[in-house]
């Protein structure tokens, strides 16, 4: 094996490590082989053993997954790459939007397509099992099924927040009044990169970040089904790079959705405060009950069959149609629309505090009322 092949193989095998750790190990072995000198290189490589063996010894030394102070993991970087690609595309759209608003001399609502690359703090565990062992409180032990892993969590374990940070997959919510626990069934995921921890602040977090060297995954084949009794989830946070989310008939206090490539759908969503940030993909909700709802969609349609209980709603779509049916009549709301052709304000009853704000850049806006 040549020096180049040895180092390349080692780098690949160390992919699960945080970048700083990987670089340190690689520079050690580069230095090692430099010192051995070209004349001893073959012998030195043979003595070190296979890259697999060298990598295994380094990976075995790694601290368990709960060391949140660890630097950015390569897998997280893979996730961030999506952000960068999308961010670039969205920047162009954002410029277009700002340009349009500027031209009209209207007050432009700042468009925030996708948050910038967030500092990563996760480190991938070598397996779901080690992650389970190292979490701060006792997390659920997953059960292997033919297609993946199943986690069963009692209501207390998800008392504050359920947080999902996945590189890809389809997420389905199923309400089942006959169950008492919350079950997360991961099918078709590479379970090696799936980690679960119960954080001190009461968050049950599942993350799934694949190393950047991996071939494009089978996105459609990976399905996470979350089965929960009614009204048990308080706060749900989803950060998904590729894949769709079907909320079913979910009822939750707070919902935070951030999807880089994928759409959201729901038959009926009841929520106190919801925040959707969709870069490429739309949102279709047959019945939404939400006092506060914020949706920012860069590319995709927003269709809400019926919106009840709205007090402060902001929907901003850059490229896509908005189709909204509001409960009640036009006089119940102060409706502010921001479109390419200008801003329109429709004041309802005097002093109504129910505010609906719709931004639409290149798409149709359709608002109707129903009781």
């Amino acid at each position, binding site marked *: 094996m040549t020096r180049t092949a040895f180092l390349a193989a080692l780098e690949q095998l160390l992919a699960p490590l945080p970048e700083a750790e990987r670089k340190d190990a690689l520079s050690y072995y580069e230095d*090692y082989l*430099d*010192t051995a000198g070209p004349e001893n290189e073959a012998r030195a490589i043979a*003595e070190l053993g296979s890259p697999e063996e060298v990598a295994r010894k*380094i990976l075995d030394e790694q601290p368990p997954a709960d060391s949140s102070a660890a630097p950015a993991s390569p897998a997280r970087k893979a996730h961030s790459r999506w952000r960068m690609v999308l961010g670039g595309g969205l920047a162009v759209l954002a410029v277009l939007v700002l340009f349009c608003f500027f031209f009209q001399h209207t007050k432009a609502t700042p468009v925030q397509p996708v948050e910038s690359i967030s500092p990563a703090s996760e480190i991938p565990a070598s397996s779901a099992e080690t992650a389970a062992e190292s979490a701060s409180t006792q997390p659920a032990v997953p059960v292997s099924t033919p297609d993946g892993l199943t986690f069963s969590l009692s209501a207390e374990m998800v008392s504050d927040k359920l947080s999902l940070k996945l590189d890809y997959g389809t997420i389905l919510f199923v309400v089942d009044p006959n169950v008492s626990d919350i079950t997360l069934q991961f099918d078709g995921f590479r379970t090696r990169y799936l980690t679960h921890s119960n954080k001190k602040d009461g968050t049950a977090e599942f993350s799934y970040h694949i190393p950047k060297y991996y071939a494009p995954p089978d996105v459609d084949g990976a399905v996470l089904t979350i089965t929960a009794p009614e009204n048990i989830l308080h706060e749900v946070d989803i950060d998904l790079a590729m894949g769709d989310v079907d909320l079913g008939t979910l009822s939750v206090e707070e919902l935070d959705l951030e999807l880089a490539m994928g759409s959201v759908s729901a038959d009926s969503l009841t929520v106190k405060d919801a925040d959707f940030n969709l870069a490429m993909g739309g949102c279709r909700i047959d019945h939404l009950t939400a006092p506060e709802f914020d949706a920012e969609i860069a590319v995709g349609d927003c269709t809400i069959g019926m919106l009840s209980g709205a007090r402060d709603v902001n929907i901003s779509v850059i490229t896509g149609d908005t189709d909204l049916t509001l409960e009640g009549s036009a006089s119940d709301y102060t409706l502010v629309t921001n479109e390419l052709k200008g801003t329109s304000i429709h004041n309802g009853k005097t002093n109504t505090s129910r505010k609906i704000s719709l931004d639409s850049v290149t798409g149709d806006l359709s608002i109707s009322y129903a009781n």
Partner: protein
Amino acid sequence: MSFPISAALLDAIVLSVVAQEPEGTYGYKITQQITHTLELSESTLYPVLRRLQKDQLLTVYDAPFNGRNRRYYQITSAGRAQLAAYAQEWSRYRSSIDTFFREVE
């Protein structure tokens, strides 16, 4: 036949090898010195060096050598203290084990 070397013993050996070079020494040399005496895989030592560095028993600096940078390891005062503790512990351990072999020799 050989006796397995525990992680603590390996730490102690690496610390003592690095301590012999007050100006610092480098990975390849440490590896050669240790594997010359002990039956040990060459790839065992990087994780040990890395761990000792993280525990601040060793420090690392780069210095130019033959037109490139070489990484040197140097023992810290905490490393010396740890090494002294290991040496004491080892001598106690050795004499207790030796009591079993007194009759044999």
